[in-house]
């Protein structure tokens, strides 16, 4: 059958380039491996030229692969932006209302596209390494090329017998999905729009966060490549120095990428925070933590010659956990434990990802074990007052913490392997927090003290003298904090509260100690202080996390508002220890929420279909002076999706010291179209009475051009306002003022509503005999309401500021280790910081 309107050429070109990239990656891995097997020690002239030609050949293949992947990337973008829904990828991820930046995000929303993004970063990093890594080019690029073979295998989409290897982004909708419409040649005319980007993901972070995170993931292969380049030679330690800037880069980008995810979750997803210990978050955090351990061991080796074996191990493991995370998050194995929605990628895909995990990291581990004895290690004793000893202890604890996190996260894997049915603990966050708060305490102390320790040996008097001021200062601050701004996280008992205080002390101590180190020891030489700045930022971030999470307040606690009427007592008589976090706001009814009087004013439609913004007016009144001290509008929004699925974006008011954070948890199910009640028109004279289901209504008077608190008409206007009293059966009384104005020979009706009585009023005009036409509508369930959660996050800006400082410290260190010129480092720091500052602190406030 010939189908009408299909554009098959771009897909065919795209698939050709996928295959070409795949073949080129195989060729470049073989050629690079061959080149790296020609050892440099015994190089004769002929071997030299053979090696040279192998490398040139491999480079050619690598660049062909790079260009092919770029082409594939642009073709996918082309398919999505032209809405070629004959392609499944465009159909699933694009839709006509999407702006260009979100069309870009479509590419990495899907499994295939994100693999392409990852491998493109490999290509970029590989190209830089081709020109900079000199004699290490062959082994490093060999490792990267093998990784490319596996990444590309996930998207080749070719058949071996009946098994399809990988899934191509260029498959056709009609071949993948069964449906009656595909038996018609003009099926495309039925598909009017694609499914589109998930509304939850329509946020500028969806454009920024995945590329940064994937650059972070992709960059972890570079230290691994350097490690491999030495493992296969006799100089087992000389990879560390050139690999340091790359490891720093990886730590910086991955760390920032992870926290971008946190900021995104905080800003636009309704998790109620920036970190929830969700398996997907953990899966990204663990490789970063192990990489940081590796980084510290490499720094130790670089300074003292110790810890080379640990450097190897941590670098290999961090890459292993990058792949393991990929396995966790992409095979659907986490299905029941994560709020992120996962898909069964299909058996063939799971096997592929599994092979990738095993094939890259296991040989590396074998090689490491085989060479273990030969890796030089210093047998003399490490002095207990040396910097390297405590750095090593710190790395070890950080590593154990990472293992703990991944061990708990891997629960679904144990269930699969051993057939058990264990599930998450009752309070997942607390399970992690109670261990990591102690880790934070130890790491805080270590990052503070070991800055002042010297490699090899430190004079104790010197240490004591330098640390006395920072430690004294942080003790004082902690005492002041506990008096004037105590942490009120009491629901886990006093023991945990103590642990929080200990961690808080340690991290404040670390902030001061690193600051003092910069000022006293380095005498403000920022260039040499990358590490101190990064540690200062990290400690500040932890401080911010402890304070903002410890004193996060639910202000939508409806037991404190007076609105809550316990209609349905819990039949078991159970007392709730946790505050009930949801509060219902009736439209137009001011409700007390924390210190704020909150009114749900109205809602407004957005440009995207099914998206609504809710205007919430917050007002804080000083109880003594009666003055309004804060007055602002928050507009959380929600998408009402197909199947009544609701997805909400929070509305947040940013202050320097805290954020007021709201999001919608329920909206009234009423659709305006469902309101079938009609206006009933009554002809009423003055003081006439009409009954309604719950009482009666009196027309008191008709006011002409009134100038009162509600209406401000002038004598030149033509306006009538009906003064109506409503008496309920419970002898309650309310007033309504529907109005009618005439301007430019047009009649305008200003209707009035009594929301809590479900009554609508309309003044429709004059009738005979001095009577007036009053429209009254009584609706079954007219009440407009939203249910929301609202929190105050104090000092959340410390978290973001800490992250920025940490990133700045990383960049300074990279510049120093890579021996970049001062101005290059300066420009990179300024660029990185201004970009991050804009994204984290300015863009959304």
């Amino acid at each position, binding site marked *: 059958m010939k189908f009408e309107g299909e554009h098959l050429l771009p897909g065919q070109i795209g698939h050709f380039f996928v295959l070409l990239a795949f073949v080129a990656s195989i060729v470049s891995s073989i050629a690079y491996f061959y080149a790296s097997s020609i050892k440099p020690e015994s190089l004769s002239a002929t071997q030299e030229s053979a090696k040279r030609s192998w490398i040139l050949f491999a480079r050619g293949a690598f660049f062909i692969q790079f260009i092919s992947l770029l082409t594939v990337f642009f073709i996918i973008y082309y398919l999505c932006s032209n809405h070629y829904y004959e392609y499944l990828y465009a159909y*699933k991820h694009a839709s006509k209302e999407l702006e260009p930046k979100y069309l870009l995000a479509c590419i990495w929303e899907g499994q295939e596209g994100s693999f392409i993004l990852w491998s493109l970063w490999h290509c970029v990093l590989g190209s830089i390494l081709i020109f900079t890594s000199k004699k290490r080019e062959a082994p490093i690029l060999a490792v990267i090329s093998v990784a490319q073979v596996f990444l590309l295998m996930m998207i080749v989409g070719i058949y071996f017998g009946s098994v399809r290897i990988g899934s191509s982004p260029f498959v056709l909708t009609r071949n993948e999905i069964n449906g009656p419409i595909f038996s018609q040649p003009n099926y495309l005319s039925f598909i009017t729009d694609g499914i589109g980007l998930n509304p939850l993901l329509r946020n500028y972070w969806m454009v920024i966060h995945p590329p940064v995170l994937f650059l972070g993931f992709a960059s972890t292969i570079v230290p691994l490549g350097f490690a491999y380049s030495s493992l296969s030679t006799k100089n087992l330690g000389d990879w560390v120095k050139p690999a340091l800037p790359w490891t720093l880069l990886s730590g910086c980008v991955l760390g920032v990428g992870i926290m971008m995810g946190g900021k995104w979750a905080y800003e636009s997803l309704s998790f109620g925070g920036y970190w929830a210990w969700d398996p997907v978050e953990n899966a990204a955090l663990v490789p970063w933590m192990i990489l940081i351990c590796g980084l510290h061991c490499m720094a130790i080796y670089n300074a003292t010659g110790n810890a080379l074996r640990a450097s190897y191990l941590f670098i290999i493991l961090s890459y292993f956990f990058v792949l393991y995370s990929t396995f966790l998050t992409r095979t659907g194995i986490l299905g029941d434990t994560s709020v992120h929605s996962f898909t069964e990628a299909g058996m063939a895909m799971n096997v592929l990802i599994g092979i990738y995990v095993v094939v890259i990291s296991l040989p590396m581990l074998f090689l490491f074990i085989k060479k273990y004895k030969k890796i030089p290690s210093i047998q003399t004793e490490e002095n207990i007052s040396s910097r390297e000893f405590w750095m090593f202890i710190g790395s070890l604890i950080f590593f154990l913490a990472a293992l703990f996190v991944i061990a708990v996260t891997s629960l679904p894997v144990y269930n699969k392997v051993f057939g058990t049915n264990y599930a*998450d603990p009752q309070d997942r966050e607390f*399970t992690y927090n109670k*261990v990591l708060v102690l880790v934070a305490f130890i790491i805080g102390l270590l990052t503070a003290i070991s800055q002042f320790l010297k490699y090899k040996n430190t004079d104790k008097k010197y240490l004591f003298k330098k640390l006395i001021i920072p430690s004294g200062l942080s003790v004082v601050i902690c005492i002041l904090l506990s008096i004037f701004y105590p942490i009120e996280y009491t629901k886990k008992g006093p023991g945990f509260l103590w642990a929080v205080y200990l961690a808080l002390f340690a991290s404040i101590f670390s902030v001061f100690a690193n600051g003092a180190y910069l000022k006293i020891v380095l005498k403000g030489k920022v260039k040499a202080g990358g590490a101190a700045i990064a540690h200062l930022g990290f400690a500040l971030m932890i401080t911010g996390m402890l304070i903002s999470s410890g004193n996060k307040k639910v202000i939508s606690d409806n037991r404190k508002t007076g609105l809550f009427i316990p209609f349905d007592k819990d039949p078991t008589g159970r007392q709730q220890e946790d505050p009930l976090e*949801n509060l219902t706001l009736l439209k137009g009814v001011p409700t007390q929420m924390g210190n704020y009087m909150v009114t749900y004013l109205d809602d407004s439609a957005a440009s995207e279909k099914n998206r609504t913004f809710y205007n919430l007016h917050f007002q804080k009144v000083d109880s003594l002076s009666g003055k309004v001290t804060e007055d602002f509008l928050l507009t959380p929004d929600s998408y009402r999706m197909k199947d009544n699925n609701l997805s909400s974006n929070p509305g947040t008011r940013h202050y320097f010291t805290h954020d007021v954070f709201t999001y919608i948890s329920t909206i009234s199910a009423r659709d305006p179209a469902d309101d079938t009640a009609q206006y009933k028109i009554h002809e009423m004279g003055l003081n006439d009475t009409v009954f309604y289901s719950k009482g009666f209504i009196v027309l008191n008077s008709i006011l002409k051009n009134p100038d009162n608190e509600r209406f401000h008409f002038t004598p030149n206007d033509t306006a009538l306002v009906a003064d109506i009293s409503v008496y309920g059966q419970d002898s309650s009384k309310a007033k309504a003022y529907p109005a009618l104005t005439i301007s430019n020979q047009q009649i305008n009706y200003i209707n009035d509503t009594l929301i809590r009585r479900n009554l609508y009023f309309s003044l429709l005009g004059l009738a005979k005999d001095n009577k007036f036409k009053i429209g009254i509508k009584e609706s079954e369930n007219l009440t407009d309401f939203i249910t929301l959660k609202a929190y105050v996050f104090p000092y959340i800006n410390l978290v973001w500021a800490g992250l920025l400082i940490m990133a700045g410290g990383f960049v300074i260190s990279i510049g120093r280790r890579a021996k970049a010129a001062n101005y290059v480092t300066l420009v990179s720091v300024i660029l990185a910081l201004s970009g991050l500052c804009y994204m984290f602190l300015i863009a959304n406030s």
Partner: protein
Amino acid sequence: MKTSSIIILVAIAAAIGVLLMYSVDFSTYDTISSAKEKPGKYVHLIARLDKSKPIEYDAIKDPNYLTFYATDSLGGSTRVIYHNTKPPELEQSDRIVLKGKMEGNVFQCDNILLKCPSKYKDDKKQLEKTVTQY
């Protein structure tokens, strides 16, 4: 390395190890009938909404009170109370993971994870359903 250093290392590692052992109190996946046998124990139920029985939720009366009935594939049935808002897609869900404990005849739930067909646009069956609607 000094012996003292090694001792410190081992002690720290051991302390953390012990901490881990005690800190993680895993719960289990249960059926409704096996959960009823251990009242008060925190479990995960994999169940589905009983559509023949009413869902009670009125956000105006109390936004933090939802009650409905859940059944599982083995025929167990229980009333569920959830002190939170009603997940909007509850009626459309085809599988729900309920976290909480049995108290009396009621499952006191503190977390609901819904498995909704519409969330899974990569799911082929769901795509087929979407396509058939044209």
